[in-house]
């Protein structure tokens, strides 16, 4: 009796563990894509794989929805396979996804890399297998591309420029010499670094003093804790520049709790719907819109052109617009 219950326990636990592993392994979903065998037997409608970062993130969700809408409108032209990773930082998983797409014999990969350097070799393998690769959102490191002698067109925003736009708008509301602070994204992320540089460009050009610059890891609650600490340490700060809106929301809450919301400005980046409400109330000064829904579409159109035989197009810089209460 005891022996069998032990075995039963073990088997059940193993089955559950396997089931869980399978669930965590599942990345995204597929839209009307035929299996590999079908591709060989019918005239190939090109299959475009869209590999993003975290599909659970609002930004990439918007991107995916934009891509799906485009595919629906052009259903005769191509099929779309949208995949994402669970965690924005899971480089390993994204490399596996690329390899899976190579194995599934897709015609093009449009990728928003989790890391600017570490995804290049996987994409190069794809190109060696005859797959067209287009880079969106987070630009591949140019040094690594040159070293590997590979050309991958980039479609995406200039984060630094966008952040500078936001910073310049803020500077117009401040006076030279005012102390300000920056709330950064994840320190290793390329777009986080670019946004920080953009904020610094704007603040230095206008003569503001950056007294603190800390990471909020793109998270509302971390930004909340960091801003509370920074405003306590430097009560004279006049503005917080946050590298994304999630963090800006945390900053606003922290300032409200400290009774400083009236005296301190907050700017963000991304134009998420939650931020728009704050803009209307005047609690957030400005943010930037990257037009996420268009980003993937541009990338897909580039890919289709390249499949059709055209040479890799030039890098295309997508617009980043300043969003304020006035132009909402």
């Amino acid at each position, binding site marked *: 009796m005891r022996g069998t219950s032990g075995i039963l326990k073990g088997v059940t636990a193993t089955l559950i563990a396997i089931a869980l592993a399978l669930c965590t392994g599942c990345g995204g979903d597929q839209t009307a894509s035929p299996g590999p065998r079908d591709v060989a037997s019918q005239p190939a409608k090109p299959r475009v794989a869209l590999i993003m970062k975290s599909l659970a993130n609002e930004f990439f969700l918007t991107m995916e929805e934009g891509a799906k809408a485009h595919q629906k409108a052009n259903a005769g032209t191509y099929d779309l396979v949208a995949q994402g990773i669970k965690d924005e930082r899971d480089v390993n998983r994204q490399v596996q996804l690329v390899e899976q797409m190579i194995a599934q014999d897709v015609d093009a990969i449009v990728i928003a890399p989790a890391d600017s350097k570490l995804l290049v070799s996987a994409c190069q393998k794809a190109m060696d297998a005859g797959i067209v690769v287009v880079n969106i959102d987070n630009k591949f490191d140019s040094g690594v591309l040159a070293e590997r002698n590979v050309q991958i067109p980039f479609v995406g925003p200039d984060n630094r420029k966008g952040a500078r736009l936001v910073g310049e708008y803020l500077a117009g509301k401040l006076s030279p010499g005012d102390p300000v602070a920056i709330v950064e994204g994840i320190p290793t992320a390329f777009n986080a670094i670019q946004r920080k540089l953009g904020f610094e460009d704007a603040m230095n050009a206008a003569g503001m003093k950056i007294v603190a610059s800390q990471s909020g890891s793109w998270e509302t609650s971390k930004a909340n804790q960091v801003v*509370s600490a920074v405003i306590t*340490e430097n*009560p004279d700060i006049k503005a917080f520049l946050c590298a994304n809106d999630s963090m800006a929301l945390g900053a606003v809450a922290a300032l409200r*709790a*400290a009774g400083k919301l009236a005296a301190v400005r907050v700017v963000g980046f991304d134009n998420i719907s*939650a931020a728009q409400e704050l803009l209307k109330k005047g609690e957030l000064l400005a943010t930037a819109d990257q037009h996420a829904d268009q980003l993937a579409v541009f990338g897909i159109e580039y890919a289709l052109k390249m499949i059709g035989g055209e040479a890799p197009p030039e890098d295309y810089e997508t617009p980043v617009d300043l969003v304020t209460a006035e132009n909402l």
Partner: protein
Amino acid sequence: MSSGRRSYIFLLDYLGLTVVLLLLIAGFSVFTENFFTLTNFRTIVNQTPDAVVIAVGMTFVLIIAGIDLSVGSVLGLSEAVLAVCLHRFGLPMPVGIAACLGTGLLCGVLNGATTITWRLPSFIVTLGMLEIARGGAYLVTNSRSIYLGTQLGGFVSLRIGGVSMMFVIAVLVVVAGQIVLSLTAFGRHLFAIGSNEEAARLSGIPTQQLKAAVFALSGFLAGLAALISAARLEGVNPEDGIGYELQAIAAVVIGGTSLFGGRGSVVRSFLGVMIIAVLAGGLAQANAQEHTKRLVTGMVIVAAVIIDYYRNRLRASSVSG
């Protein structure tokens, strides 16, 4: 053991943690300008209520030699339910609150029921719930953060001597938890289950029901923490709560609760949370870079556990001596 010895041991238990806390405060006061101020202490303290509440639940779970890895995700899901009730369906506050707490409780009940029915390790069950609840949070909010503004408002801004109402509630939860652990049969039974479950069962303690109750409690407290967090951050993000389970475990272990069960105190877990909060606040005020913060936090956690080791040896030797 004489009563003098007892109070000596009692003090020693709490002394170690308090010393660490005071050392941290002193250290940061030296290195930063505005640390040793009432405003600062209030600010730090007002950020801890959700972490405290989760730590209480985690203490109970660790005492019975279980573990609850799902608390962060359950917090996220409960928050998501709250936000959707208030924002999308426009339901009144009490309904939203009930839904939030109910979601937490339901997840906890599921954790407990699954663990005891199939006699599975709580590690795996709550790991599964971690994924399920997180997925649920994304599903419910459609992956978008929801701004609630001051809908949770009046309650949030209520202060007593500058300390928020939510912190007072968290302290009440700590007190209630400690009373249950120290003064009720229920509490004593939990320690027995954690020390030696089979012996506890043979002596007539309804171990399975008590274990299920503890997981339900942990889930419920995660729901309460969700309410607090949504109020404090004025909104809900489906990614809220990621990592909270590890932070709670760190705080509880710093507080001297054993990962192997049978030993623990909610008040000490509270001190553990305070230590981590003071550390985070101080490092941010010292404008430390991200890598410094993580290195220092890790070292403090290990140091606190080593101090706890010596504390226990002293305690053991004075008991036997």
